[in-house]
């Protein structure tokens, strides 16, 4: 398994004729690492939700284990960014890009934590008598991931329009969360002995809803990158 080393993209050996990477290259490398972080988080979210539905304790364990990669990669992104700003004294637009990337990486790291929390819930639920997972939960997970993909693509394309579109799906996510909330209350009232399952599922949905908010924040980072304006896209 790849351990998500922060060295990615910097000249891969045999580069004797290569000088120190230019600022442009270094910036591109930072961006690639943020995209890597996004890909790792997307994978973690998919697997955490699958572990929940399939009561797969081992898969949940892997998700928890691999969160270390996410944290490590974020740390190395932070280092690259701070050292770039300190050493190269970039122009305003580049600083803006670096700040946007810095912020996006922080959001992604938090999203990794939510995936880890869902994996923990999956393990706790697997220890309880089986109760069908509310169908809204896999739906929320799919929605979250497709929003995350769209946000990463907006970042690749530096597209303000795409970034704004990302946030459009957020209402649907909120509605799904509300419906999970009602379903868990109903389940608790009807079968008090299933209260643990109900609250666990409610928490999982809550994490997914928060994940969606974080994706929206990345959309805001892209808008900031393009326009220099800080906007709340999820009022």
């Amino acid at each position, binding site marked *: *398994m*790849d351990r998500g080393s922060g060295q990615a*993209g910097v000249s891969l050996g045999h*580069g004797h004729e290569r000088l120190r990477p230019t600022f442009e290259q270094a910036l591109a490398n930072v961006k690639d690492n943020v995209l*890597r972080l996004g890909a790792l988080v997307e994978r973690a979210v998919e697997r955490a939700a699958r572990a929940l539905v399939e009561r797969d304790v081992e898969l949940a364990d892997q998700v928890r284990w691999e969160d270390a990669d996410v944290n490590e990669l974020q740390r190395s992104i932070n280092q690259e960014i701070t050292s770039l700003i300190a050493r190269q004294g970039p122009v305003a637009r580049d600083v803006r890009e670096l700040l946007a990337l810095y912020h996006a990486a922080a959001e992604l790291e938090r999203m990794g934590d939510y995936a880890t929390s869902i994996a923990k819930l999956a393990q706790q639920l697997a220890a309880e*008598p089986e109760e*069908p997972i509310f169908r809204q939960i896999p739906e929320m997970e799919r929605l979250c991931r497709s929003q995350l993909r769209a946000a990463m693509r907006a970042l690749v394309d530096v597209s303000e329009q795409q970034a704004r579109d990302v946030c459009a799906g957020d209402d649907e996510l909120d509605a799904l969360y509300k419906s999970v909330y009602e379903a868990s209350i109903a*389940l608790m009232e009807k079968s008090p002995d299933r209260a643990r399952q109900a609250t666990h599922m409610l928490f999982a949905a809550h994490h997914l809803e928060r994940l969606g908010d974080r994706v929206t924040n990345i959309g805001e980072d892209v808008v900031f990158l393009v326009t220099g304006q800080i906007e709340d896209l999820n009022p």
Partner: protein
Amino acid sequence: MSTDPLDAAAFAALLERTAGDILLIIDDQLRITRAGAGAAVLTQRPAGELIGMSLIAAFGSAPLDALARRAASERSPSLGEADLGPRGGRAFAVDAVPLTGGELVLALHEITALRRAERVRRDFVTNISHELRTPLASVKLMAETLSAGAVEDAATAGQFAVQIEREVDHLAQLVAELLDLSMIESGETTLRLEPVDPTTVIADVAERIGPVAARRGIAVQLLPEPEGVEARVSADAGRLGQALLNLAHNAVKYNRPGGEVRLGWESSAGGVRFTVADDGIGISEPHQQRIFERFYKVDRSRAQESDDATGGGSAGLGLAIVRHIAEAHGGSVGVRSVEREGSVFWVELPLAGPA
């Protein structure tokens, strides 16, 4: 770029080996320098746009990126798999081969269909063993009863011999139909459809479930057939019997002591509706939506407890098979149930056309 003879040869060999695959060339910074049309489809970007893009930006796949980085840093070929495409819905085997100039060739070979076939094969084996287990359990049960003394009683022994023969016939038929069943799984079902009398089918199921029900003290009742209706369903009698027997088996297995199983049929909008009713534990609303899924069981511990008594295993496949069979006939399945009161399962099949 790298035109030394070794590279050219290696590249030609790769091309040969990967006809129909998606080929990419990336530089030592993992940026795409050449991309085929397939890559454009996969990334939903025009091929021209991909040139100069990093692998992670174009594909957004952590495993693909990690594989290419490994091949690039170790300067040796690397193999792996990655789920790519808009929602990661297409599976690929990936070959990363470094060229001497520092570039990498990535060959993406789609294995989505292979994965699906593997899953079908796995499910198929599980399904088969499930289908074999129920009749085997009945035979074993009767053999045990015989050796425990029933063999002395000529009437019972004779009746058991007939039953055993029937179950063994059924097993033999199952084995002969292994091939057919694999087709149900792959959606290319060949059913031997013929006009079938619903009353005969129901009577046959009642007879087959009888010994198992008796053993658990469950009564089996045949509901009177609808008056003045001469219905024939279009069905493969063997498969239909198999589906209803699975339902009857559940009705016994999830019943309460002293409960009853009622088998019958009625005319319905869709043709004929076969019903299997019980006075058992029932199924709560949220579970009702899911019990027809493969491997789904309401309560694992409870399903296991009832195993010994009925001899059947509990794989959570019975109802999945029922649904398969009903849908292959162009029919449907359903359930109505109240917890702690009982359940009614039904299979609805279309009528046979006028002969």
